[in-house]
């Protein structure tokens, strides 16, 4: 086996040093009644060529965004990733290393994370960001836990009805045994209903969670929400599933959010069927010591030279055990790196420009679809990348019709939003050419003939 270096002679030699006659003797600590009495029933080892052929066949059975016109979003976004990103993360000094517990030989990982933390702060308008969480959904859940921990006796969480439903479900999973009540804030015209929110937010509310942009792609009036939330002494958690929007629109920090979490997949991480992505998590200074997850800080070595270490570990499970701020003990290191490289390449100007391109593409698609008889854009107001189309025919049939033309036209909203049975969530990014958008529009119109 190519990954196993031992020769028979070496094995005999090693057994001699240990003082046993066979490898089996090394397992003598395992009682007979705990032994598997047969061979594993798995296929025989395959050569690299055989395995790749088999995997290639499986891969070929999937609708890849290279070959399909993809207008799917909903928490995972089809953006272009420059060759530099994959090239650099393929350096095995990065990806074959572990969590940087030994800082003297992990300065590469540590400095890259420190830079990542900085760029997340700059983008979100916050003071402190951690070294990342698993994904946007679990980061959102951890943000709710932070609000409950720091909210003293407050026991209610208000979740906007326009929040990404998978985030909402993940929050529900995390909170199910924590004596916390989750209440949904109604949606009015595609946005969190401010009037309803005003009547719901009181001194028993630990946090209000709002998508920015929300699941329908709409830009919420975060400043107004922050005002209501702040007046009641609750924390405002902004959940950002498409952070490219933050290069164009005011940052949640600037608008008054207390916690900003989200998903960083848009920044150079492949779609990969929805994972791995990367959760980001940023707070104001007052919540620094309540953060979950790893944090990298700057310090000096014995010679006074700048270096970086994991820090504020007394929050964490390996020290605090059941009293830790979270059970998380990893960060998405490799994805952190992808995001860092992607953001460094695009920089101050490129990210803004890219966000503008995305905005313009979606605006074009929206206008073209709005002009079609029977189709309607569900909500007014500003949006980013995504928008909801109300269709004149059942969405399932419509989607099938589009699929026959090799178009993945959007997400049917009926399952998560029964009040939008004909709703189709369409996402347009820089990856969609005008030709693709026109093809989508024509295909949609095709049903009217």
């Amino acid at each position, binding site marked *: 086996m190519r990954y196993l270096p031992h020769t028979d002679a070496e094995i005999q030699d*090693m057994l001699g040093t*240990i003082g046993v006659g066979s490898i089996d003797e*090394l*397992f003598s600590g*395992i*009682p007979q009644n705990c032994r598997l009495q047969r061979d594993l029933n*798995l296929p025989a080892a395959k050569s690299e060529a055989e395995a790749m052929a*088999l*995997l290639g066949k499986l*891969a070929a*059975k*999937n609708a*890849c*965004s290279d070959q399909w016109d993809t207008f799917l979003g909903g*928490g995972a976004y*089809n953006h272009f990733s*420059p060759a*530099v990103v*994959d090239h*650099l993360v393929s350096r*095995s000094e*990065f990806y*074959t*290393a*572990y969590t*940087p517990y*030994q800082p003297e030989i*992990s*300065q*590469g990982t540590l*400095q890259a994370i420190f830079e990542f*933390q900085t*760029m997340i702060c*700059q983008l979100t308008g916050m*003071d*402190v960001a951690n070294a990342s969480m*698993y994904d946007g959904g*679990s980061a959102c859940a951890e943000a709710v836990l932070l609000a409950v921990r720091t909210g003293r006796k407050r026991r209610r969480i208000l979740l906007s009805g326009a929040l990404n439903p998978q985030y909402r479900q*993940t929050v529900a*999973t*995390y909170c199910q045994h924590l004596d916390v009540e989750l209440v949904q804030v109604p949606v009015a015209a595609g946005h969190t209903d401010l009037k309803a929110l005003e009547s719901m937010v009181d001194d028993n509310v630990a946090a209000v969670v709002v998508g920015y942009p929300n699941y329908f792609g709409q830009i919420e009036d975060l400043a107004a929400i922050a005002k209501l939330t702040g007046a009641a002494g609750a924390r405002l958690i902004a959940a950002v599933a498409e952070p490219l929007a933050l290069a164009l629109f*005011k940052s949640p920090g600037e608008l008054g959010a207390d916690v900003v979490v989200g998903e960083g997949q848009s920044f150079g991480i492949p779609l990969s069927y*929805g*994972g*791995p992505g990367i959760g980001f998590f940023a707070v104001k200074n007052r919540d620094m010591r309540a953060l979950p997850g790893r944090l990298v800080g700057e310090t*000096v070595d014995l010679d006074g030279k700048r*270096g970086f270490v994991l820090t*504020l570990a*007394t929050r*964490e499970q390996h020290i605090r055990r059941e009293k830790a701020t979270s*059970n*998380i003990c990893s960060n998405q290191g490799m994805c952190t790196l992808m995001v860092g*490289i992607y*953001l460094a390449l695009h920089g*101050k100007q*490129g990210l803004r*420009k890219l966000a503008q391109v995305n*905005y313009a593409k979606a*605006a074009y698609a929206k206008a073209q679809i709005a002009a079609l008889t029977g189709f309607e854009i569900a909500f007014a107001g*500003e949006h980013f990348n995504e928008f909801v189309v109300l269709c004149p025919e059942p969405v399932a049939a419509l989607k099938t019709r589009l699929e026959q033309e090799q178009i993945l036209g959007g997400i049917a909203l009926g399952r998560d939003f029964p009040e939008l049975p004909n709703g189709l969530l369409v996402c347009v990014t820089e990856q969609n050419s005008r030709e693709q958008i026109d093809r989508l529009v024509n295909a949609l119109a095709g049903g009217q003939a």
Partner: protein
Amino acid sequence: MNTDGRGLVLDEKLLFEQSQPDRIGYSISELDVPSATPQDNLLRDEIEGFPELSEVDVVRHYTRLSSWNYGVDSGFYPLGSCTMKYNPKVNEAAARLPGFAGIHPQTPEALNQGALELMYQLQQALGEVSGFPCLTLQPAAGAQGEFTGMLMIRAWHEANGQKRHKVIIPDTAHGTNPASAALCGFEVVTVATDGMLSKEAVAAVLDDEVAALMVTNPNTLGLFEKDIREICELVHAHGGLVYCDGANLNALMGISRPGDIGIDVMHFNLHKTFSTPHGGGGPGAGPVGVVEKLEPFLPCPVIVENQGQYAFDYERPQSIGRVQSFYGHFGILVRAYSYILAMGGEGLKRATQLAVLNANYIRARLEGVYDLPNPQRSLHEVVFSEAALGNGCHTLDVAKRLIDYGYHPPTIYFPLVVRGALMIEPTETESKQVIDEFCEAMLAIAREAEQEPEKLHNAPTRARVRRLDEAAAARKPKLRWM
């Protein structure tokens, strides 16, 4: 031993310190639709402090940073409990196939049959290795797997009308175990062990408020819990369930299956046992296997197969819900499946055998010079203490001195039950030569502790930086540039 190299160590500033106004490293296709801008009052100012660099700047920056790192591809990485085995390159190629890397999670299942088939087959293979009939691939990491498993245990009790609120955890457990249990609303009851968990110790704290026992087997001392079957029976007799932390599954493949010996729930760490890269901290993947009676509680959605067609089942009224968006770390699942294809059933068993051989060989070579607190036969890892070190030398000093010898240190100060623990897990992918050289270094360091202790106290001297002031970092946290 890598003691005579003095490589070229390049300096590298932060991205932000190199930034030059108007320098660019991106290319964006020309806009082929009319331009459009949102209303002014919603727009942000430019992102203050964001870097402006060329492509060359960025490439050089990260290339230099990478040279300050030590990975499995750099050399021996005997980090106990982490199973730092070689990460096969073909796995990376497989995960990057456009038909895997380029598929959107909202694509209809009928159009992603290859991805679903791969996930289904991976579940089957993990089930065969572990003895569990039902699995979820959704958890993002081991700790999230623990959380998922403990939620299922709680849901099962509640479905049976029981509100049990205690979980028993031995003192050798990883810190994530009690943290995950607490996140499920459980109260943690810690039991002391004497290297091994005894039936008596468990019996002493067992009552009808105990929802589960959480064990690691083999435990964090590398010892197979010899009474595990009887302990499981005891817990079951009191109406509780048994959770196993699968961190040490690399010691058991093809030898013993947790699902056969009374364990009810176990998480896998695909980044340990199944060779997927640790990535500088992640992403990993933490699938969970369960016995039949816990199947209704698996996270949503569950993959189902019907006559060769695969689909997600969302109609799961008793499910604990979802623990993250979508279906898990699919890119990591592809790598693990690629590994299983390469190894086959026989190869996985061989990996376990050689991992145990390597650990026992290190033990034999270092025992007597380093103190071995637990004399029982250990499996895939060996834990020494600092008791034999003199001259004020501690485990931390040994670890830092190992860096000067060109090695990543073992896990240190864990498990907590061993004073100054040095936890060494070589894995199966290291050859006898590599291990011999490592042992020579360890023996040399023990001699230095006797004769030239300052070499340990001053270590490392050959890394990019010397020892860092961690206390200062925590006292006055600086967590971002500027």
